[in-house]
């Protein structure tokens, strides 16, 4: 570089040249990165505390403070939380809740995603008279506080004989997930070129033919977003779980709350934190693995039709 400049300097005059000198540790940068660091620590601390506490033995929990790392790492609290922790009378740990959540989440995600994607496709491409009225009701419906609909849905489920049953909860999740998912799919299918749909119709494909053979292969990303949204949403649900299932089929969140907030016996904070982190593990894994898709999913809730 210096050699190249040598020959050119004749045309240069004095004074500032090149980039404005800027120290890496300017006051602005220290302030900016300092603030961001403090904020990041604030947000990270609860996760840290959860992990640290869950790896300590009870004597150490009682002596130390919640931020100090464990002197002796023990996985006993995790084992206890998983298989022995007590909820009121029974002491069978979180595992039952976990498997209940799995049995609730998988069919709920599948059914709600299928129904919502068909809805969205119909609304985007096959608008029949009145379709938009139902869609508008659906969107406004998503703002109705769940408490208003809790009891009518109880009656509905009782009528079809599914109250207190896992299948009933699957229906509930399908119903309450429908507005946001339908909106998500409708917006996505509307953004695809309409010529594609027209070309397929000219080629003689019908409602299901176009959906299965033209639209589905193009919508893998949006299905991923919808599935992430639903898995985290349903896994994290508490209210519907507590209302529409019985103690035998409580999802994990309800089981967790019952374990931690049960008033019987000595409080074992390490077991509680182990249980808490186990419950958070599924959505956290999804979040850290899917990254951008998760952000797209939650932003989709804010994108209006």
């Amino acid at each position, binding site marked *: 570089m210096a050699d190249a400049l040598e020959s050119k300097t004749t045309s240069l005059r004095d004074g500032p040249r090149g980039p404005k000198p800027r120290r890496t540790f300017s006051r602005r940068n220290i302030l900016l990165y300092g603030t961001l660091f403090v904020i990041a620590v604030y947000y990270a601390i609860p996760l840290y505390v959860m992990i640290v506490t869950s790896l300590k033995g009870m004597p150490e929990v009682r002596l130390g403070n919640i931020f100090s790392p464990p002197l002796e790492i023990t996985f006993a609290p995790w084992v206890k939380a998983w298989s022995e922790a007590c909820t009121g009378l029974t002491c069978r740990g979180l595992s039952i809740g976990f498997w209940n959540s799995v049995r609730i989440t998988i069919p709920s995600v599948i059914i709600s995603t299928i129904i919502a994607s*068909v809805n969205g496709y119909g609304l985007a491409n096959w608008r029949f008279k009145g379709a938009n009225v139902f869609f508008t009701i659906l969107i406004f419906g998503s703002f109705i506080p769940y408490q208003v609909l809790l009891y009518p849905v109880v009656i509905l489920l009782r009528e079809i004989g599914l109250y207190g049953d896992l299948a009933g909860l699957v229906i509930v999740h399908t119903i309450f997930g429908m507005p946001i998912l339908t909106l998500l799919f409708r917006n996505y299918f509307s953004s695809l070129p309409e010529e594609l749909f027209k070309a397929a119709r000219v080629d003689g494909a019908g409602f299901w033919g176009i959906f299965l053979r033209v639209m589905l292969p193009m919508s893998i990303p949006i299905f991923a977003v919808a599935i992430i949204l639903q898995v985290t949403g349903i896994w994290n649900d508490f209210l519907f779980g507590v209302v529409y299932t019985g103690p035998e089929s409580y999802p994990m969140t309800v089981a967790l709350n019952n374990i931690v907030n049960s008033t019987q016996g000595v409080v074992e904070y390490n077991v509680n934190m182990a249980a808490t982190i186990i419950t958070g593990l599924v959505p956290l894994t999804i979040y850290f693995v899917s990254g951008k898709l998760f952000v797209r999913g939650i932003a989709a809730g804010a994108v209006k039709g």
Partner: protein
Amino acid sequence: MKRPNQLFRNFSAKIAAIPMIVTALFVFVGGTAWTVVYSFTKSGLLPRLKWVGLDQYERLWTTKRWIVSIQNLAIYGISMLVLVFVIGFILATLIDQKVRFENVIRTVILYPFALSFVVTGLVWQWILNPEFGIQSIIRDLGWTNFAFDPLYNPKIAIFGVLIAGLWQGSGLVMVLMLAGLRGIDQEIWKAARVDGIPAWKTYLFIVIPMMRPVFITTLVLVVSGIVKLYDLIVAQTGGGPGIATEVPAKYVYDMMFGASNLGQGFAASTMMLVTVALIVIPWAMLEFGGKKHG
């Protein structure tokens, strides 16, 4: 050739729409109407069409627990709204300064949003535990009189819940605000620099007004989340100490499924519906009604 029956046009599409139609009509419209109607009855353990007029509402508004619930929701709601917007927006602007490690910072700030309210509530219950948590740590550092036990002090208990709520929800607002900031024409920034307008003024007088749509959608999302506040309370405080952190959603649940007083539950939930309607309907009119004229 005979014109095909209108009913059978796009027949598959109509069949496929049945779940949506049933949900919209029977659950959302029907369910809401049902609850509102039964809020005027004397339903106890089971719903009964025995009219009592506005009795349930009168009882509701003379019940101390309901009044406390409403007050708590107001305090929590207003503080949450203000703080979540301020924090979310400041975080977004900080991240928007072309910082390095943007992805790491964003990931750390947003992860609480992936956790359930139950998990959130339990973690903060532990951190705010006066015997082991923040209070004891600061006392160990020498300030032996330091007191910070929001979950045991009825006067400030609701703020203990607020801390947890902010931790869980501010990442979402940040993400939405950041998307809004990124959506602003970069040339606006250039024009402001040529005009010699300092960055903070550009944010305040130019960028924030331009982000109105993002602010409104975020507002609607946050508000409808606040009204639904339930799981967090149940997990973190159980409504206590005493009734210090009761909220309307919990009142409804307890009346319906605990106290076998369905009528009260219906009346209380109807009041919640009215609250949401007061926010959503003006928004909807602004958002969708305005376009026809503009």
